[in-house]
C-alpha cells in the first residue's frame, strides 16, 4: 500500500496529468523511427523538429500559466507580430545594424509584448471582461496596429548580428532558437512546480475565491501572469524576426490556437488548476513531430492538422474522465 502510494506520488510529481500524452508522443516517435529510421531518427532531423517548435514552445510556456489560472490568451500570435514590428522600427531608427541595435531590439520586442500582457491582465481583472473576449480584442487590435505601423508591408531589415545568432546561429551545435526555447521552458517549469508563484497560480485556477480568502492578491497575480504571457510572445516575436528575416505580418493568425492546443494536449485543464510544463513541452512536440514525420514517410503534411485535431479532442476527453472519476468518489 505505502509502496504503491509512493510510486503514485512520484509519477504525479514527474508527469502529473501528462502521463498518457507522453506515451502517445513516444509511440508516434517510435512509429516514424520504425517506418524510416535513417531519415527520421537523425540528429539533424530531430534538431529541425525542435527548431520548428521553438516559437510555439516559448509562447506555450506563457499560455500554460494562463490556462492554469483558468484563463486563456488568444492574443499571442498578434502580439508576436506587433512586438517584432515595433522592435524592427526601433532598430531601423537606430541605423539598422550593429550589436547595439540588436540588443535594443530584443529588449523592445519583449517590452512591447509585456505591455500587451499588462493590458490583457488589467482588462480581465479590473474591467471584468472574460479572458476569451479581452484577449480576442487584443488579438485584433495588436494585429491591426502592426499593419498600421508598417502600412501592411513586412519589415525586412534586421541586424545581421541578430540573424547570425538568435536567427540561424548555433551554440555547441544546438541552434540558438532551441536553446532559448528550452531555457524558457525549464525556467517556466521550475517556477510553476517549485515556487510560491507557481503554487498560487494553481490555487487561483483551482478556486480563486479560496485564494482570495487566504490572502492571495488574485488580481495582481493574474495581471502578472498575462504580462508574462505577453512578454514571452514578445520574445517569440524577435526570435521569429531573426529566424525569417521578416516580420511575417500574416504568418501568425492561428498561433493562438496552435499554442492552446499544445498546452491542452499536454494535460493542462481548460478549467484551470491542473497542468505541467513538461506536458506542455510534449504537447508542443506532437504536432511538430507529426508534421516532420508525415512528410518523411511520404504522406501529405496536411494530415498533421487532422491528427492534431483528433489528439486535442482526445486529450480534453481524458481530462473530463479524470474529473468525473474524481468527483464520483
Amino acid at each position: 500500500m505505502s509502496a504503491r502510494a509512493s510510486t503514485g506520488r512520484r509519477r504525479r510529481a514527474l508527469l502529473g496529468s501528462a502521463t498518457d500524452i507522453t506515451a502517445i508522443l513516444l509511440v508516434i516517435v517510435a512509429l516514424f523511427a520504425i517506418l524510416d529510421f535513417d531519415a527520421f531518427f537523425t540528429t539533424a532531423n530531430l534538431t529541425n523538429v525542435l527548431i520548428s517548435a521553438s516559437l510555439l514552445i516559448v509562447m506555450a510556456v506563457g499560455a500554460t500559466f494562463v490556462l492554469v489560472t483558468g484563463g486563456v490568451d488568444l492574443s499571442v500570435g498578434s502580439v508576436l507580430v506587433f512586438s517584432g514590428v515595433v522592435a524592427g522600427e526601433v532598430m531601423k531608427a537606430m541605423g539598422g545594424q550593429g550589436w547595439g541595435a540588436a540588443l535594443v531590439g530584443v529588449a523592445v520586442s519583449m517590452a512591447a509584448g509585456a505591455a500587451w500582457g499588462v493590458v490583457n491582465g488589467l482588462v480581465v481583472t479590473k474591467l471584468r471582461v472574460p479572458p476569451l473576449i479581452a484577449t480576442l480584442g487584443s488579438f485584433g487590435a495588436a494585429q491591426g496596429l502592426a499593419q498600421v505601423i508598417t502600412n501592411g508591408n513586412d519589415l525586412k531589415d534586421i541586424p545581421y548580428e541578430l540573424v547570425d545568432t538568435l536567427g540561424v546561429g548555433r551554440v555547441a551545435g544546438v541552434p540558438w532558437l532551441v536553446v532559448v526555447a528550452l531555457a524558457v521552458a525549464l525556467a517556466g517549469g521550475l517556477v510553476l512546480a517549485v515556487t510560491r508563484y507557481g503554487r498560487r497560480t494553481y490555487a487561483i485556477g483551482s478556486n480563486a475565491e479560496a485564494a482570495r480568502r487566504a490572502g492571495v492578491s488574485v488580481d495582481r497575480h493574474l495581471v502578472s501572469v498575462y504580462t508574462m504571457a505577453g512578454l514571452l510572445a514578445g520574445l517569440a516575436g524577435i526570435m521569429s524576426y531573426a529566424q525569417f528575416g521578416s516580420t511575417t505580418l500574416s504568418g501568425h493568425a492561428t498561433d493562438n490556437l496552435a499554442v492552446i492546443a499544445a498546452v491542452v494536449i499536454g494535460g493542462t485543464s481548460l478549467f484551470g488548476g491542473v497542468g505541467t510544463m513538461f506536458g506542455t513541452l510534449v504537447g508542443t512536440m506532437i504536432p511538430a513531430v507529426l508534421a516532420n514525420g508525415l512528410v518523411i514517410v511520404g504522406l501529405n503534411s496536411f494530415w498533421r492538422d487532422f491528427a492534431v485535431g483528433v489528439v486535442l479532442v482526445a486529450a480534453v476527453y481524458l481530462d473530463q474522465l479524470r474529473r468525473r472519476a474524481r468527483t464520483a468518489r
Partner: protein
Amino acid sequence: MTALLEARGVTKRFGAVEALRGASFAVGEGEVVALMGDNGAGKSTLIKTICGVYAPDAGEIHFAGRPIAGMSPSAVHDLGIETVYQDLALAPDLDTAANLFLGRELLAPGLLGRLGVLAKKRMAARASQVLTDLKVAIKDPAAPVATLSGGQQQSVAVARAVTWADRLVIMDEPTAALGVPQTRAVLDLIRRVRDSGRSVVLISHSLPDVLAVSDRIEVLRLGRRVARLVTKDTDEAQIVGAMTGAWTQEEAA
C-alpha cells in the same frame, strides 16, 4: 468569565434592510459557543462583521480587550481568528498540505527562498503533524483534496483554520453537507480544538450537534440577541422557542 470576543449593540444595514439591530454576542476563552437563529436572523452578517468582511454601522466589537470593529479581514486574521466557510474555500486541485498553507506558504531557507522556492517537505511535515494532533486521517495527503470524501475535505478546512487560529475558530455550518459518521468526526474535532485552549463559534441549524458539542448557546432573532443559554441547563423546546419568538430572555439583548 472574561470574554475573549464581545460584540455589543452591533447594527448593520444593507440599504433599507436592517440585518443587525443592536446584536450582541460573547465568547469566553476555551469555550464552544453555538450561534443559532432562524434563516435571516443575522448570524452570517454578524460573523462577517466580526471577521472584518463588513464594517458595522454602529456598536462595538472587542477581541481580547481590543476594539476590532471595522478592521480589515487580514488584520482580523493576524489576531488569531480564522473562519471555516460553509462552502469550504479549499482549492480542490491542490493537496492537503498545499491547502493548509494556502496564502501562507513556507519558503526554503537562504537564496532559494528569496527566489520564492517553496519548502514543500517542511510544509508536508507540519501538515501531517497538525492532522495527527487533530486525529484526522487523510488517506493520501499528496492527493488533490477533491479526491477526498466530503467529511475529509471538511476536516482539512477545519484543520486549516485551526493551524492559523491561535485564539478563535469560527465555523459556519460545518456539518451541513455531511453524513452521520463524518459529522461525528467534525464534532470530535471541535472538542479537540477547545481542549487545546482555543475558543470555537459554531453556527449551526442542527440542534443535536449543538447540544452535543457546545458549552453555551446564543440565539439571534431579527438581528438581535434573544437568549443566552448554558447548554447543560437547557433543552430543545427552549432553544426552538427562542429561535421562533415564542420565548424571549429579556436580559439577553
